[in-house]
């Protein structure tokens, strides 16, 4: 038994050394007892160009071809700790055998190996700007010129101010509900900037910045929040449930993750119509626990659908920290489980988000495949106006992320370092936007609500007889009891 165990361990050790990589959760030692160098597990995909390369890996750099199932064998991870001695010749013959199963060929092994529940090192996070807004790699700037950078920055500021003012409006009782994207301005704006107007966006609910980028006006946002008669949603849903077909932004719905499998269907449509466009499905860390996440990613891989899954991992699902949400290394590691190429990116780095989503989009469309982008960030604001996050997390943690890890400030420093922005412009912009938002709110407030008939329409394409009947009955009731009904809904 002991001999077998020693030999097994030795072989495992031998394999790790020859592949140059240990990936167990424990530190692995070589023969002399020194720790073996840790490198990323489960294969790495180096994007062409210096911009995207992950730290040196002994694995083949990504090629244009899809990874084949037969290469999975190289990614097996040994869990056993290093042991020295024993030869390994006995097991070489076993390793040479290959078995055919419905899923493809797999190598046969007589070593019992469990894949570790987690890698020794987490998947590293792609970033371009350091915390002070200075570029680390000098190759992204060409992609983001002054015009684009300034639009990105001003939209991030606009988003910030819009969120702050609308939040206050709810506190003042002017709107019933609001939800900010504070802390996630870079994810919202930079990802939107990397897409084109033809790409279909299927949001969760914290992506108002994407809609803002596409041209949805402050007035249109305000109209929806007030549910007035010019709200495109006709006053039917709570605030922040925006939707705009002219902006290719599907209407927000409250249920979590439902948009994920829908995005795959939409992407299949683009593929069959031979459109040079993709779908971008957004969701948070909490969403990835829903069955629809699993369904969507699995379908996307099988259908080879041109969809980008953008996960805003902001650390919190209302009061549930990610440690209570999952035990995987975030969301990025799950991509490979479905056969989906994935990347982890610093969600507070606008340039990194922009580059990664640009690249993802190109792969999605050119190669007709799904891509998973996990953007790490922090939800600075409360979950919504119905939440007080100080009840479940420390104030100083919130303050830290709000001040020291602020994505807007960080990007501003980069834009300023290029002399494309300055304090004067900043003050002017903030004043202007604030005025515009307040004006939009005032205007939205003065509009009537949609007419009563909008209660009954659009349930189906035409009005069925039961709704016809119910509308008549309701109108009778309103005549008899007008005081039961709000005055701002025209009857």
């Amino acid at each position, binding site marked *: 038994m002991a001999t077998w165990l020693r030999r097994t361990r030795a072989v495992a050790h031998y394999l790790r050394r020859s592949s140059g990589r240990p990936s167990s959760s424990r530190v692995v030692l070589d023969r002399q007892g020194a720790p073996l160098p840790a490198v990323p597990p489960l294969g790495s995909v180096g994007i062409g160009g210096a911009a995207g390369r992950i730290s040196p890996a002994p694995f083949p750099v990504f090629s244009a071809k899809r990874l084949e199932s037969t290469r999975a064998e190289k990614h097996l991870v040994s869990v056993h700790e290093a042991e020295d001695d024993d030869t390994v010749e006995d097991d070489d013959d076993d390793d040479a055998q290959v078995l055919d199963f419905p899923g493809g060929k797999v190598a046969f092994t007589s070593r019992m190996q469990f894949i570790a529940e987690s890698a020794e090192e987490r998947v590293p996070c792609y970033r371009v700007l350091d915390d002070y807004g200075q570029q680390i790699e000098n190759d992204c700037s060409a992609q983001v010129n002054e015009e684009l950078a300034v639009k990105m920055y001003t939209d991030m500021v606009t988003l910030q101010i819009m969120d702050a003012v609308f939040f206050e409006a709810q506190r003042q009782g002017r709107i019933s509900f609001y939800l900010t994207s504070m802390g996630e301005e870079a994810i919202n704006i930079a990802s939107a900037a990397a897409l084109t107007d033809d790409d279909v966006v299927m949001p969760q609910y914290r992506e108002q910045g994407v809609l803002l980028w596409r041209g949805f006006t402050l007035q249109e946002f305000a109209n929806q929040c007030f549910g007035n008669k010019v709200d495109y949603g006709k006053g039917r849903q709570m605030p922040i449930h925006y939707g705009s077909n002219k902006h290719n932004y599907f209407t927000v719905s409250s249920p979590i993750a439902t948009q994920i499998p*829908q995005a795959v269907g939409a992407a*299949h449509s683009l593929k069959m119509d031979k459109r040079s466009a993709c779908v971008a499905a957004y969701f948070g860390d909490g969403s990835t626990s829903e069955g629809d996440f699993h369904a969507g990613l699995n379908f996307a891989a099988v259908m080879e659908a041109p969809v980008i899954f953008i996960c805003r991992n902001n650390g919190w699902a209302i009061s549930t920290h990610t440690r209570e949400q999952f035990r995987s290394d975030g969301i990025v590691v799950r991509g490979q489980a479905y056969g989906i190429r994935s990347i982890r990116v610093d969600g507070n780095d606008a340039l990194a988000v922009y580059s990664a989503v640009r690249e993802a989009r190109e792969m999605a469309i050119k190669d007709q495949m799904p891509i998973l982008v996990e953007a790490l960030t922090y939800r600075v604001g409360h979950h919504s106006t119905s939440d007080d996050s100080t009840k479940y997390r420390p104030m100083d943690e919130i303050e830290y992320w709000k001040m020291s890890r602020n994505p807007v400030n960080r990007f501003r420093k980069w834009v300023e370092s290029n002399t494309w922005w300055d304090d004067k412009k900043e003050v002017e912009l903030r004043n202007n936007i604030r005025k515009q938002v307040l004006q939009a709110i005032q205007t939205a407030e003065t509009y009537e609500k949609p007419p009563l008939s909008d209660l009954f*329409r659009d349930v189906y394409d035409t009005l069925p007889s039961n709704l016809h009947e119910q509308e008549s009955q309701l109108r009778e009731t309103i005549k008899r009891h007008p005081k039961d009904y709000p005055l701002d809904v025209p009857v």
Partner: protein
Amino acid sequence: MATSAAQRFGRRLASSVPRRRFSSSAAAAAATGGSAVQRTQNPSLNLCSAINQALHIALDTDPRSYVFGEDVSFGGVFRCTVGLADRFGKGRVFNTPLCEQGIVGFGIGLAAMGNRAVAEIQFADYIFPAFDQIVNEAAKFRYRSGNQFNCGGLTIRAPYGAVGHGGHYHSQSPEAFFCHVPGIKVVIPRSPSQAKGLLLSCIRDPNPIVFFEPKWLYRLAVEEVPEHDYTLPLSEAEVIREGTDITLVGWGAQLSVMEEACLDAENDGISCELIDLKTLLPWDKETVEASVRKTGRLLISHEAPVTGGFGAEISASIVERCFLRLQAPVARICGLDTPFPLVFEPFYLPTKNKILDAIKSTVNY
């Protein structure tokens, strides 16, 4: 008793209500479904072939239409999708992973982009993982977007109902759950010719629809089915047997059981009017009301458990409209309030004799 034409065929209501249809029922065996015989000889098809034909026509007439679900590619576990993948290609007819919420979610996305998406759920018993997508997404897609978006091109097909040996998970009739969801339609055909026309209507209707196919009739029901492309109207019930003493309302395979009961009742001098509801949501109250105004009695029969079944909705609505006309309480002859049993299936089901007994006691109330 004399009845005016208006009473027998019903009054025309507001223009939004489609005119009722009446077809003379052949006193034919229950399995053939009771359609009028055509002059020209159409080929006889069973239910799954009729559905197959409808799908071929749907895909042929709209290049942006798709059929997908578990095992549909090789022809489907009930052979309803035979030949489609070969004819229209893997991009339009394909297997999906085993995941109903994914199938329906995917279908919603496809339909939202303006395509006709025909999703198959292998058995209605397995539709429940997709319930969230159907209720919270498909049904509300148009309404919540202010009509900027819709997934009207979505049709979900699922075999439902007793099959003789299906037990808990191959026999269910879940229509009642879906009839409670504003925004979708629920359609159930009784025969091959009906199925073809109704399915084509559903696929082309601009609303998401759940189409339950009575699996018992897939092979058992055979009748002449016109070969051409035709549709049958939704939300129009059909009087398939005229009568004067009592109105019977049902759908799907149960109608053949009810028709047998009607024949037996006739031997006892009871004249039964039998109505196929066809569309359960939105349902044609006017046709049923007109019939009950004529007969004064109503009996509803369905395989699904009696409590909370769709018969309750029909009963309540008709009592509201016809209270003073009714001569007896509304009868419901339905499945028992148990999971669908295997060995006990004959005891569970609403049989011809249970219906016949109820017809007599209602008439003699």
